């Protein structure tokens, strides 16, 4: 009886401790990421101009208190343009008597032309225009403007890291690496490695751009041609991945060697196809993937999120996912349990090639050009993302969401260091130590 009780208690303890362990094991890096985000937010906390909404709100509040005519003053920047459009939309028609967009001389000219008898307008300025001395000292500088009221949005406190634009920036920066890292995770789960993804990114970018520019009319290419060439580029990369898989499975070439060879071959082809030049005669429709937005978030980020959800399910809930982990965990045991080991490995490499192809199309769409130099060193960043995400290079262990976290960690570190003005060479050093730290963390928790 006593034994029964103790065994019951023990099994309970097993459950609790494995729950903790697996949480730590699977998503320990998530806590690190959260800590990094908190630290960066604190470090970049400073007084800064309010965002579009904040500025518009402040200025409209001033405008409502009087019934003076209104002048809108701003620079030609996109941000000011949007603020002026926003104010135009919100104020009743006829209220705005003049809109001045440009530099200080433009404003001086407009102010001088203002007839002295007319009522003094209220000036609603953007933060930037508010800084011009001709605006802030208007009453002293120009006759006839005594008693003018100038409204400038007040500065607010906030973290420049947490600004919406910056976060989207981080997401944008990481999409290519994160997408390619999905394929790399599959390959690493089988216990392999794929060094060719960087070159495949270049090959895909060159093939897609060259095809559109040369054979489909360049800037005037139809969207069908854009989709067609992009698809072809991705297929070509999938074929390279499939060849990698063939070498690794049927010809038993070590993955490191086989994909190293493919890396050279693909890179060479990319340079030959592009003749070493950057291709940029591309239509606007090619921009949609990399620069388009949907509900304020870049299309590329949506695509990334979609792929991560899909592969999270594929790895966790399909027989292919189970087979993939089994092959990486112990290929012999998997084979003896009736898993088609070669087939699984072949699929993993093919998908990795295809994801690299997609990454190449995405990158060239973001940069609106294609060149054979794209993707250089990406294979290492991608592998770093997977490793930081907790996957074991010996195979059989790793989570797809871990890889996403790994990619985000790398992006956040890079972005954070840029915001803090860290020397780019020092950034490399820091990144290196982060990778070592992640691996140490992995060792420590798998004890």
């Amino acid at each position: 009886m006593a034994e029964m009780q103790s065994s019951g208690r023990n099994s309970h303890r097993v459950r609790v401790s494995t729950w903790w362990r697996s949480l730590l094991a699977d998503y320990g890096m998530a806590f690190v990421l959260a800590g990094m985000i908190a630290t960066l937010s604190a470090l970049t906390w400073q007084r800064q101009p309010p965002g579009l909404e904040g500025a518009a709100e402040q200025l409209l509040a001033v405008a409502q208190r009087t019934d003076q005519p209104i002048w809108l003053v701003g620079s030609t920047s996109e941000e000011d343009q949007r603020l002026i459009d926003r104010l135009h939309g919100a104020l009743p028609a006829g209220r705005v008597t003049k809109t001045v967009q440009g530099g200080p001389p433009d404003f001086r000219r407009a102010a001088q032309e203002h007839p002295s008898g007319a009522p003094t307008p209220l000036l609603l300025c953007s933060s930037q225009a508010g800084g011009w001395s001709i605006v802030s000292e208007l009453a002293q500088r120009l006759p006839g403007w005594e008693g003018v009221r100038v409204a400038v949005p007040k500065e607010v406190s906030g973290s420049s890291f947490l600004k919406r634009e910056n976060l989207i920036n981080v997401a944008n920066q990481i999409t290519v690496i994160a997408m390619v890292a999905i394929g790399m995770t599959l390959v690493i789960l089988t216990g392999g490695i794929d060094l060719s993804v960087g070159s495949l990114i270049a090959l895909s970018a060159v093939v897609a751009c060259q095809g559109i520019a040369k054979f489909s009319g360049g800037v005037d290419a139809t969207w069908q041609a854009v989709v067609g060439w992009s698809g072809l580029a991705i297929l070509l990369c999938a074929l390279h991945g499939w060849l990698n898989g063939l070498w690794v499975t049927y010809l038993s070439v070590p993955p490191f060697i086989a994909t190293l060879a493919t890396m050279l071959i693909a890179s060479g082809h990319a340079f030959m196809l592009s003749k070493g030049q950057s291709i940029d005669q591309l239509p606007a429709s090619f921009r949609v993937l990399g620069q388009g937005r949907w509900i304020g978030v870049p299309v590329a980020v949506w695509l990334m999120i979609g792929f991560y959800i899909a592969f999270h399910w594929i790895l966790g809930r399909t027989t292919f996912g189970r087979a993939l982990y089994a092959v990486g965990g112990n290929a012999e045991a998997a084979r003896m349990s009736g898993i088609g080991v070669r087939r699984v490995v072949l699929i993993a490499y093919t998908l990795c090639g295809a994801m690299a192809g997609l990454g190449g199309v995405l990158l060239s769409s973001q940069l609106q050009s294609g060149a054979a130099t794209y993707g250089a060193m990406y294979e290492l960043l991608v592998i770093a993302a997977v490793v930081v995400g907790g996957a074991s290079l010996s195979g059989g262990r790793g989570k797809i969401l871990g890889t996403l976290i790994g990619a985000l960690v790398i992006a956040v570190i890079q972005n954070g260091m840029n915001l803090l003005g860290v020397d780019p060479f020092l950034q490399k050093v820091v990144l290196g130590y982060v990778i070592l730290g992640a691996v140490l963390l992995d060792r420590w928790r798998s004890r």
Partner: protein
Amino acid sequence: MRNRNKGGLAPGPIAFVQRKDMETTGVSMSFFCRNIASPQQKKSDCGRTKGLRLNTPCLQVTQVSKSFPGVQALAEVSLELHAGEVVALMGANGAGKSTLIRLLAGATQADGGAIWIDGKPIRLADPAAALRAGIGVIHQEFFLVPQLSVLDNLFLGHQRPLGIISRRQEAHAAQEIFQKLGISIELDASCGQLSVAEQQMVEVAKCLLRQVRVLVLDEPTAALTPRESHRLLDFLSTLRAEGLAILYVSHRLEEVFQIADRIVVLRDGRTVAEGPVSHWQRKPLIEAMVGRPLESEYPKESADRGEVVLQCRQLGRGSSVQNVSLELHEGEILGVAGLVGAGRTELARLLFGLDRRETGSIELDGQPISLRGPQDAMRLGIGFLPEDRKKQGLIIDHGLIENFSLPNLSSFSRGGWMRRSEERQAYDQQQTALGWKPSTPRIPAKLLSGGNQQKLVLGKWIQRDPRVLILDEPTRGVDVGARVDVYRWIVRLAQSRCAILWISSDFEELIGMSDRIVVMHRGRIVSEILDPRKISASDLLSAAVGADRDKTDG
């Protein structure tokens, strides 16, 4: 005793090793038996030393406890080991033997209790500390570098002044120890070429060169042939006569009765019984290990023998399998006896499609079949429980349920998507039936003891409901208690009309469980035993080695 040892030892080359050791531990000069013999001890025989309790034990373990998350592996275990004594440490898998061995090897640290050498408490912080303290552990897996020569392996890790290797001195010392122990292995041979038994000898010699006083052997005969096991036991007797204290861990009762002076039985991390070997008998010993009364060691029940399911004719591949013809009936357990290397595993691999046959044919229900891989064999209802559980049967880092589902993925999924509730239900069902513990589906398989691992592997194949199940050494490294459970399940399978091909090196087990036995030798079937109950294990052994005795000898 001390004198005799000294006498047997040539001074000179060895002295180098000794002097160095003296500096570090400051104990006696004699070679193996460095017990500073007390007057009483001098009188006693160096061999069986049952009356030595008055002396300080060579190794003493007191009240040692160790727990892992969720498991109390050892609970206040105490143990004494005297010079010139062999103590058999017995227990079912998961009883705590491995943990105790790991503690003694310095691979892990106890939560409480103490370990004493010659009455002095010692701390075994790491494996090197254990060796320095005079404890040598021979694990089941050997730690020899296959590319290096025997000599290099023997002295691997030895501290040398300025790191300079004196090969002449080393070779001399090695020769000496080999001679003393009656080992005939070339010092220049690379360790990768040695047989398992020879590698084991090298491991032992390596420990002795470090002047250990306590030798711990973990299942030393698990991978040896009967002949090699016999030699090992002789060898251990020599070591005992030299005054070494030996802790012998084994499941094999025959060996224990043959070699041990005392037996200590562990169960659930506690010492449950202890006593001189003469006080023990087979059945009570098993019951002490298992913790429940034992009806029969081999719970054989015959099933109705049905039609021929699997038949092979003139099957062959290279020299490992030649001209093998056999028939396997529904509900039949067909034993395959033979020595290691007789081609039994290779035959199984052909029948499961792991290797391609070169000659002959395989028929299932009278229809010739061609097997291009395990998937083909599995589709036809053939299952295979491989010999090496940890390397072939399981993915030991993965969860129990993942392992369980691996051969059953197609039945737990629709269109490639897993049906996790069905999977979990099947897992729970088989777990309840076979009773592996712990049952927690997500813990890695490596946390299970050998017996529980084997139940899991058996469970994953039973879930497939195979027509033919090939078992390759299904009870190797499985403790007596779990073994009987495995036997019961195999009988139950046979009764549900499954045909079973059972490869085993445990001839007692084959005789006890088979309906029929074929004996393989050098890739061929050399004899068939229609009524196993009428023969003895030694008959079977002689059939296995007897075909051309002159070649297998030596």
